[in-house]
């Protein structure tokens, strides 16, 4: 059990600053080596997690949730009411999504998600967060100047549109439900999922194309 002593940990960080190699790959290698030697983890299990999050768990899951919500009004209702249960209808409940909430874009509202204090992210439906989501520039700026940040992503927002920024300060996580692009009435769920970009589910993308191939 830790002693929960901040001063000690701060000192450890100062020592690590001096004693760890400066190259990130070497640092992580050193950590893995020690943990494997001490039987705290098996490298094959690390492999398994890497493969799970490279192949299966990623933004494709979120896109399928969005496509179903677009296609099925009852599902959308369940998703807005109780997102964890609704995503689990597809088997996507998991790490960091037990308190998921879905926030819906409309013509008058645009939603945008951040975690200013660390980098909380709904892993089991969006996979690994993009590097920019975890970087100081995005975390610092998006709550103060969301429209400027959106412009940097190539998204222009009309002045009248309300911008809602969701700062994930607790264990709630947020998924943006983007607007269904016009002219997609004929598409099935799989085709619709192909229109959904990862960024549109974070809120740094807004106008989805109705005719594109898979984006994710």
């Amino acid at each position: 059990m830790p002693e929960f002593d901040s001063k000690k940990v701060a000192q450890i960080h100062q020592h690590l600053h001096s004693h760890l190699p400066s190259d990130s790959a070497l640092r992580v290698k050193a950590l893995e080596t020690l943990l494997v030697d001490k039987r705290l983890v098996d490298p094959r299990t690390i492999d398994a997690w890497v493969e799970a999050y490279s192949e299966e768990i990623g933004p494709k899951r979120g896109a399928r949730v969005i496509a179903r919500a677009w296609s099925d009004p009852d599902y959308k209702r369940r998703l807005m009411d109780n997102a964890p249960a609704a995503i689990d209808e597809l088997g996507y409940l998991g790490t960091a999504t037990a308190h998921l909430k879905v926030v819906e874009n409309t013509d008058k509202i645009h939603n945008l998600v951040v975690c200013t204090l660390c980098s909380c992210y709904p892993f089991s439906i969006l996979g690994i967060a993009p590097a920019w989501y975890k970087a100081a520039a995005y975390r610092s700026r998006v709550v103060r100047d969301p429209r400027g940040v959106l412009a940097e992503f190539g998204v222009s927002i009309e002045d009248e549109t309300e911008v809602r920024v969701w700062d994930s300060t607790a264990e709630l996580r947020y998924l943006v439900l983007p607007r269904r692009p016009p002219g997609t009435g004929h598409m099935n769920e799989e085709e619709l999922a192909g229109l959904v970009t990862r960024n549109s589910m974070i809120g740094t993308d807004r106008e989805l194309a109705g005719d594109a191939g898979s984006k994710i």
Partner: protein
Amino acid sequence: MDGIHDLGGKQGYGPIEVDEAEVPFHHDWEAREWGISRSARVPGINIDWWRHCRELIMPEDYLSRPYFDSWAQTDFATYINVGIISMQEVVSGKALPGQFNINQPPPVLTPQQAIQEDHDNATRFDSEIDTSPVFSIGQQVITSRHGHDCHTRLPQYVRGRCGTVHDYNGAHIFPDLSSLGEETYQHLYTIVFEGSELWPGSEGRNDKIYLDLWESYLVVK
């Protein structure tokens, strides 16, 4: 703590790398660290304590080193703190005889089992509590003016500010005490702030900022 991690509204951090390739991992070591973080857990190191240990990274390292690198450093720090890894072992780069190790081999998972475990990791952080929530939806509240020296989830940019209760989320584990090893629960609200309440020069911009805040962070207006 008013640490370097509390980035909301801070200025000078430059442009966002919007053209980043959309891949889960940009380097193999990032993937390894992710895998380690998923599978090599240690009893007693809860998420709030781990987050606080990440906040305690030296500010220059926090800003200059890559994200997953800071996870590795936090893992090192928490393992060292509980005595599982020694600083001697960090320096030598290998496990030394006579130090901590476990007799039983660790579990071996397949990718399919990892996906299943991810599903089982849908941890809930809420609980029933005896007291009723003090605030109701639509009510105006003011946030505390002060933080404190330990872990807290009330960012500086919303301290001493007026907001409105947008939603009530049940009682959730209180991170300020959880990070000290005490499991207590408090009512958790989603509070909405007008941008103009928070930022100079943002009047009329039609921006709203939502945060999930615990009851003791709030006072009645």
